[in-house]
């Protein structure tokens, strides 16, 4: 793999909340696609390497986690306040807009929302941020079997946060990615969570889940191999059957 990114200007922009963030301004579509692909690849590699227990090293894990956090921050900044270049284009399938695990869905198709099968191979047209948010929500709906504590009719946005499968769907997490989270907090604001941007701050990331377990133990190797929460990440490459296993384990945790 040999990517070369030629970027023109890097600008400091302000999103609607007044937070400064740095964004890339691309000269051409090809550049942007290339950049997004590389970023995606980087993220995937980060996850793979974090799970590689052959070389346990706190130093290495911290560097990987920081890199991953940086990429996620960049992704959520883009999503939360889409800059001009993002609004009018079709971008390749990116993990920003899908959960890491892509199960067989029963998604209600709305007009502007593609089916998951589209997302699997093709392109997501995100011409408006509203669409994007709806996509997120729809994805969450079908995820969780009834074994899970909450009812399926309730807003599943927070449900998914428990599993951490919507790590990359966060918008404007101002508290940082590794904030502590109690189950009670999640259930309290169930109704308004998808509309209230501050709620996003309490959502735990999938990465957080794995990284926190990674770093929680004194010796990360052992923890990594035993921690069931890391399996949601692994299932990104597995099929839907593994999701059942994950659910069982996590319910056991809860």
């Amino acid at each position: 793999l040999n990517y070369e990114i030629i970027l023109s200007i890097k600008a400091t922009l302000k999103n609607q909340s007044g937070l400064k963030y740095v964004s890339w301004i691309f000269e051409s579509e090809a550049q942007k696609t290339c950049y997004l692909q590389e970023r995606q690849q980087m993220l995937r590699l980060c996850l793979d390497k974090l799970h590689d227990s052959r070389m346990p090293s706190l130093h290495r894990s911290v560097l990987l986690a920081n890199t991953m956090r940086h990429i996620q921050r960049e992704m959520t900044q883009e999503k939360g306040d889409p800059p001009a270049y993002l609004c009018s284009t079709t971008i390749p399938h990116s993990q920003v807009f899908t959960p890491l695990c892509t199960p067989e869905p029963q998604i209600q198709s709305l007009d502007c929302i593609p089916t998951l099968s589209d997302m699997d191979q093709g392109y997501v047209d995100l011409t408006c941020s509203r669409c994007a948010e709806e996509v997120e929500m729809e994805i969450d709906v079908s995820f969780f079997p009834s074994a899970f504590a909450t009812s399926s009719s309730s807003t599943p946005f927070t449900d998914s946060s428990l599993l951490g499968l919507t790590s990359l769907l966060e918008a404007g997490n101002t508290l940082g990615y590794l904030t502590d989270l109690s189950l009670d907090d999640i259930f309290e604001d169930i109704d308004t969570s998808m509309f209230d941007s501050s709620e996003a701050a309490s959502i735990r990331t999938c990465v957080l889940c794995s990284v926190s377990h990674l770093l929680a133990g004194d010796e990360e190797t052992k923890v990594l191999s035993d921690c069931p929460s890391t399996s949601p990440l692994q299932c990104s490459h597995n099929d839907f059957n593994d999701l059942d296993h994950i659910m069982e384990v996590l319910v056991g945790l809860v």
Partner: protein
Amino acid sequence: MADIISTVEFNYSGELLATGDKGGRVVIFQREQESKNRPLSRGEYNVYSTFQSHEPEFDYLKSLEIEEKINKIRWLPQQNAAHFLLSTNDKTIKLWKISERDKRAEGYNLKDEDGRLRDPFRISTLRVPVLMPMDLMVEASPRRIFANAHTYHINSISVNSDHETYLSADDLRINLWHLEITDRSFNIVDIKPANMEELTEVITAAECHPHQCNVFVYSSSKGTIRLCDMRAAALCDRHSKFFEEPEDPSSRSFFSEIISSISDVKFSHSGRYMMTRDYLSVKVWDLNMENRPVETYQVHEYLRSKLCSLYENDCIFDKFECCWNGSDSAIMTGSYNNFFRMFDRNTRRDITLEASRENSKPRATLKPRKVCTGGKRKKDEISVDSLDFNKKILHTAWHPKENVIAVAATNNLYIFQDKMN
């Protein structure tokens, strides 16, 4: 069978050179005395002593194996005929005494020469044992074992200028030891957050100041160095000085943080400067200036465009060391393809040399190497794409007084000397 060398260190006089390897062994070389009989063997290094310093251990509580790999060796200043060194693996530091024995007592009363006990009733006369010369034997014995003080992996040890204490650093903590006391150490730095999920930075290296016994520095994975004064507080969590070069925003990439992680920090012999090694460069800092280094040397800038592949094959996490020469006028560090680099601080000249058997015969002069970064490759140049990233020189050492260097290339040790006319 030779194992991968994991540390190289000259002692204070340069007479001895110690290497530690991945198998937990320490091999010490001694410089031959120059003699008129063999003028050509000016100061060759021969094996002096070999011993097993650390064995693999198993932590039953965490179900983890503790590697026997020697991470660092540091010599103590010589105080008597014996030599002392500290060697450490991930968890345990050991003080070894290396002593010579060239005499043997003969003529004991109660036992024969072969050790068998003599029947006391048969002894009719008493004799005084006499010391007889014997073949030189070099013995290594562990004198102190400093264990159970580090939860995380030890990356550095450094002997203090008071010659009584030393520090040991792991990913999150630094401890101060007294050489005589093994059952307790004093924690002087602790960067472990209350909530481990908030951890974003680890300690990568630490060293005591060469003259001021109250001063030490430690580097971090974020490219910063903190200088601490032990007189200021018992726990040196607040630094006295904080060294960080502001990041160039135009060169920011996904890899910026990883390549800024400092892999080694070394004070100059004078104590006025310190040198740090990150993935692509070596920086010299004036201890009186915290906001930027005074000198920056690019080790292998041609790798900047290859960071993606170096990240994939994990080479980006390689930890290179660096060292000063005796007069602080030159610095040396390793690279890939068995290349190592030397920079002259005064003339600003630099040279790339190769440590390999094919390219160097004994007594031959090393030929400077050059990496071709683009365009037409000249004869004898090597293109970036044909570099062997498995041949990495992570550990080098410079004789404290002379121009003699030791370079560890995987499982081979090369010793080079200045050519005498």
